[in-house]
């Protein structure tokens, strides 16, 4: 899949979910694998930086996480 699911983790950083080919849609994976109550957004993989030097400092504005909430 060429998409990723992002949500804000408990430490205020960004969690990035890479979906597997498992017979589920990315929406189904988001509902299942995003922690309960966490807002998420589905983005293109190209939107995720590849330079991970400052990976632990990445943040996301929770207001941008508008595609759903973990079930």
């Amino acid at each position: 899949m060429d998409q990723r699911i992002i949500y804000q983790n408990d430490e205020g950083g960004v969690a990035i979910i890479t979906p597997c080919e498992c017979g589920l849609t990315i929406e189904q994976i988001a509902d299942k694998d995003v922690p309960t109550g966490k807002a998420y957004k589905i983005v293109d993989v190209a939107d995720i930086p590849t330079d991970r030097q400052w990976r632990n400092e990445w943040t996301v504005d929770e207001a941008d996480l508008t595609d759903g909430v973990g079930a």
Partner: protein
Amino acid sequence: MQYNSIHTGEDIDAGISKTQGVASNATANATDAQLRDRETHTGTQPLSSISGAAALASPTFTGTPAAPTAAAETNTTQIATTAYTRTAIPNVLNASGVAPMFACRAWINFNGTGGTVILANGNVSSIADHAVGDYTINFTIKMLEANYCITGSTQRGTSGGAGDFGVRNNSITRESVGVVTADGTGVLEDASTVSVAIFR
């Protein structure tokens, strides 16, 4: 004195009707035994009229049906009995001896550098990348309970010593497990190959 009965026209018509369609002299030379012998019969008989018979096509057996046990390593359409499978399954898995076997319930091989790239997996729906060297593996079908065995390894992909693989504290659930990879000194780092298997 004996009298023969007198047949009416209706009796005669009924008799003629019964014999219509029967070939001339069809049974003229047959003995009673031959007429009763099923092997001399022609035509077909509905299966439903035979007590206890099963169809050749897609039969549903009842009771405890049995079959000859196939020779070891048979690989045909022959029926496999329980006796055959008890030996065939360990043989196919090259599992000699009588020690029990336990199954891998989920596994994954991924590259954690430059963004997570899943190389191959079984029963994994996704990986959550939380930070450098910090991941959650989510199972497609959850485990029966959380006391499963987690085994894993890393390949650092950089020069230096061997990498570390560990399980994040309080991260083992039926639905997922958190794993961490480090540089051999306890500092988390992304590894170029992370392999994880779950046994239960």
